[in-house]
């Protein structure tokens, strides 16, 4: 029974408790022990890196160092947290001098980053440690081939030498639920979340591009594995309808919601009513 340090960050618990609940239930079904990390800090997101590189290093090195105490890998459901932690680990592994400087800051708390554990995204841990066959064995209510477009999110995919994430992982995880993966041209493109604070119209244009590309490709649903991407693609649909009268009608589900439903969980258990664009339509695609 693998045990993990679960790093939630602040966005999932605050904005996507349904993601958190679905992930915990799915993990439990596979005997993945996700233990909430205690006393850890917010990752600060790429925004912190932008104006305070050193502060960003220290805050995230601290989180990793806390994880290293019990030696379990850190797992997170958020691309922002994943990107920050993974990036910091990469930077500090490649820069001895900086690692020393950062560790000097951590000394006060009796912490030291050594680089002994990995930082992983929840979906990658699920895929690698549990495996597609074990997952398939628990799919009791497969989807009927519903068309689902994957939005990976930038910080899960890039830079590839930092994230080490293979896009096939999420495709297989979708297919094992019985759904079809909808290929679309803009699959790699950013949702626009990061530019929201400095240029909102630009952020909306990016979301629109993405939604158009997905809609045109014939998808019925979108899956995301990041709260920020979720906001951009789900919540913004409501705003775009209100402000521009544009309607995409593309429910956005967090991946563990889809898997949970296919494993026979109820819509309440995966918090389906919290999705902004009504997502109940997916229930009709479940084969009893």
């Amino acid at each position: 029974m693998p045990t993990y340090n679960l790093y939630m960050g602040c966005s999932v618990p605050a904005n996507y408790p349904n993601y958190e609940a679905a992930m915990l239930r799915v993990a439990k079904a596979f005997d993945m022990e996700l233990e909430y990390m205690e006393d850890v800090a917010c990752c600060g997101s790429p925004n912190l890196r932008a104006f305070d590189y050193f502060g960003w290093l220290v805050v995230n090195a601290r989180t990793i160092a806390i994880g290293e105490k019990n030696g379990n890998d850190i797992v997170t459901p958020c691309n922002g947290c994943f990107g920050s932690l993974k990036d910091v680990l990469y930077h500090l592994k490649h820069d001895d001098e900086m690692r020393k400087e950062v560790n000097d800051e951590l000394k006060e708390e009796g912490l030291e980053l050594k680089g002994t554990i990995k930082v992983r995204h929840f979906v990658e841990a699920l895929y690698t440690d549990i495996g597609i066959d074990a997952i398939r064995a628990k799919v009791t209510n497969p989807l009927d081939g519903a068309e689902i477009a994957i939005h990976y999110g930038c910080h899960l995919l890039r830079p590839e030498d930092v994230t080490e994430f293979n896009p096939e992982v999420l495709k297989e995880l979708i297919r094992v639920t019985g759904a079809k993966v909808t290929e679309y041209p803009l699959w790699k493109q950013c949702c626009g979340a990061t530019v929201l604070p400095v240029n909102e119209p630009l952020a909306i244009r990016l979301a629109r591009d993405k939604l158009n590309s997905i809609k045109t490709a014939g998808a019925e649903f979108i899956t995301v594995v990041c709260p920020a991407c979720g906001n951009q693609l789900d919540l913004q649909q409501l705003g775009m309808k209100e402000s521009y009268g544009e309607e995409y009608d593309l429910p956005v589900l967090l991946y563990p919601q889809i898997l949970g439903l296919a494993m026979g969980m109820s819509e309440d258990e995966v918090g389906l009513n919290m999705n902004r664009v009504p997502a109940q339509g997916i229930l009709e695609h479940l084969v009893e």
Partner: protein
Amino acid sequence: MAETDEKASPPVTLVDPIDMSKLDPSFRDDVKSMPNGEELTACFACSTCTAACPIANQWDFKPHQLIRMILLGMREEVLSSREIWECLTCFECQERCPQNVRVTDIFFDCKNLAAEEGYEVPENVLVLGKELVDKGQLYVVTADWEREDLDLEPEVPGLSVEEVEKILKKTRTGRLVGGE
């Protein structure tokens, strides 16, 4: 059209070149010495980064031009540009660079330099910094009933706000936005 007795306007300078001697060659070295900046000088301006960038079309300075400006020493123009702050950090440019220039990382470096050297940091970015220093997190739970409905702890689990506040007050964040 009738002749007017207006005076002729002053002669227009048709070619108004950038005076290279007024630029700052140390800018290039500064960026090169920053995290992941070492490949900066490998750039051969193929403009792959601009081709890869989803929003370059909206920019006055395209990514490859920003890199060129760094190489030429146009510190002022780069560090005061809106472009570096609008970078999506989606890493598409960096991923596709045929010379391994870590373009996105370099724009991160530029933002740090801009913040350090007193260039304007967009207000909403500073707001996020203030949130971090004051509240220790970017998002605060506002609808704890939602969490309770899902059998989750009402607060963000395991989040320590004091420690991050303490760290960031000492680093540049604290200097930029001050403590409470």
